[in-house]
């Protein structure tokens, strides 16, 4: 198998996301004359370093899945740029894009929905190879068997249909399909949230092993903070279509800067009944992404919010040692940067 192995320790950018927006038009009012926009992803910028796993966390509906889909061109961005190895993937023609897709793949959330129920597993895994015409005949069969081995499935089961497999096995089929073309970047869109906890860890370990073996770069989307902590090198936190904080894993979990991240981390249960936790309870609920006013996206629920937060949108800026956050109150809050959870649980 030919795999481009990345030189370890090279910290160069593989993907640069700049000012990406995805607005869904929502027609409202009499005869749908008024068009409003649902800002699922609103002006997001960050880099992904070659060979790393960037975790993307946030609650349901914050736009993390949309962002992942935009990054592999399954959804057309409203504005912004994604540079993949200096190639502007949004400007590719549809023909060029189809060729380029082999570099970036996606593993989907629902293993029951992401496999065609009328295709055999070998056909599902072989499809990308057939499309690109990389393997034919006996070679194709060999490659499919090889891929099944790589993801821990027995090639004996190649002629089975997806419904004959368990959820975890199906997810492995999805991973095998994503790996078929030797991509460099894989978006893992909540790949384990539909699985049992025991199967979750197996799948995560598989993803980690594959990353090491093939030098893959992951964007790992999840709402499960402990899973993200386990697998990520860096973590980005999303709220209401915005990335509000991005830092190295340890840094983010030990000393979060953004109030939303703090609240999020304080909500994680700690498996220690005697531990008194300072839990931050947020008031109200997440506002609709359609009704967001000016200012900071979190201002309506933030306990630190002042006038400036409701009027001016904070910059997403480096607050030292590659720890980026978007909050006006960070300076004021420096001393209050609390280690909310020193006993952070490790999910192994």
């Amino acid at each position, binding site marked *: 198998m030919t795999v481009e192995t990345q030189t370890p320790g090279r910290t160069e950018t593989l993907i640069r996301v700049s000012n990406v927006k995805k607005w869904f038009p929502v027609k409202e009012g009499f005869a749908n004359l008024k068009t409003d926009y649902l800002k699922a992803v609103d002006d997001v910028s960050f880099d992904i370093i070659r060979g790393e796993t960037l975790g993307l966390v946030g609650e349901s509906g914050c736009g993390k899945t949309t962002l992942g*889909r935009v990054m*592999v061109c*399954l959804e057309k961005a409203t504005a912004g740029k994604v540079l993949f190895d200096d190639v502007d993937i949004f400007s590719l023609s549809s023909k060029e894009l*189809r*060729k380029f*897709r*082999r570099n*970036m*793949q*996606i593993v*989907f*959330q*629902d293993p029951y*929905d*992401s*496999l*065609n*129920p*009328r*295709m055999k597993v070998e056909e599902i895994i072989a*499809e*990308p190879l057939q*499309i*690109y015409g990389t393997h034919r005949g006996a070679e194709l069969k060999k490659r499919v068997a090889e891929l099944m081995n790589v993801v821990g499935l027995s090639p004996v089961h190649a002629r089975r*249909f997806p*419904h004959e497999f368990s959820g975890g096995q199906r997810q492995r089929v*999805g991973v095998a*399909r994503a790996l*078929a*073309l030797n991509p460099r970047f894989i978006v893992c869109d909540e790949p384990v949230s539909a699985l049992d906890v025991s199967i979750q860890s197996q799948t995560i370990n598989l993803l980690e092993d594959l990353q090491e073996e093939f030098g893959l770069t992951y964007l790992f989307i999840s709402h499960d903070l402990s899973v993200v902590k386990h697998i990520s090198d860096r973590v980005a936190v999303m709220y209401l279509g915005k990335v509000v904080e991005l830092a190295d894993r340890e840094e983010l979990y030990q000393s979060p800067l953004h109030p939303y991240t703090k609240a999020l981390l304080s909500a994680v249960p700690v498996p220690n009944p005697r531990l008194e936790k300072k839990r931050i309870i947020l008031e109200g609920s997440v506002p609709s992404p359609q009704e967001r006013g000016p200012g900071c996206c979190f201002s309506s629920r933030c306990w630190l919010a002042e006038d400036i937060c409701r009027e001016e949108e904070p910059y997403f800026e480096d607050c030292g040692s590659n720890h980026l956050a978007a909050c006006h109150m960070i300076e004021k809050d420096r001393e209050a940067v609390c280690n909310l959870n020193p006993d952070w649980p490790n999910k192994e």
Partner: protein
Amino acid sequence: MFSKRKSAYVGLVIILGFIVIALFAPWIAPHDYRVQDRSSIMESPSLEYPLGTDRVGRCLLSRIIYGARISLTVGLVSVGIGASLGLLIGSISGYMGGWVDRVIMGFVDIVWSFPTMLLAIALTAILQPGLQSVIIALGLVSWPEYARIIRSQFLAVKQKEFVEAARSVGASDFRIIKNHLLPNSIAPIIVVGTLGMATAVLVEATFSYLGLGAQPPEPSWGSILSMGKDFIYHQPLMSIAPGLAIMIMVLGFNLFGDAIRDIMDPRLKN
């Protein structure tokens, strides 16, 4: 489950039986369906004529046996035309979406709002009466139903993640339709198509009964029935036999629809 399967097999056997009869009609039928035996007109059943003879002395049994050919041909061809048209138009509509979908569906609504019978009669009037006209009329009238079904299936299946997955591995639109959307959308079409054959058999009989379908001496069950109604007291078999033939064939297609649906679903396979 078992009894349902059993009834489905009954349907299969009926259809296969009619197909065998239609294919081997020249060997099975005791007489030529066109030959008029002037010495035995309106005869009761006998060894020579098992179901008796009609007004011009033709063997009733032979005419009914040959009639299976007409009914099956009309059923298969008209559903074939209607389903192919509907599949093509519905696929485009469901896959493209947007204004293309709205225009096509508007057209479908217009065609569908026409009374089937009236449209078919108008068409046969233009094309002149005969079996071809009945077949074309049925095909042109029935496609909107298939188009609607395939479109709604496409709209549902298009949302599935495996279609996104295919797109993300670089599949072309044609490949997505052929390998992913159609195989997951076709099952209801097969079922509706089988039931459509039952309807087509009935409509053909109706048209031939009215004199708009098969022209003499073609032995359509509808036209035999039409002749039989004049002699229903003297020769009830002349009405009962073609009536029963129509009923059994329609029943067979209806039962067969279920069987096919089960076979098409890999999840029901053991």
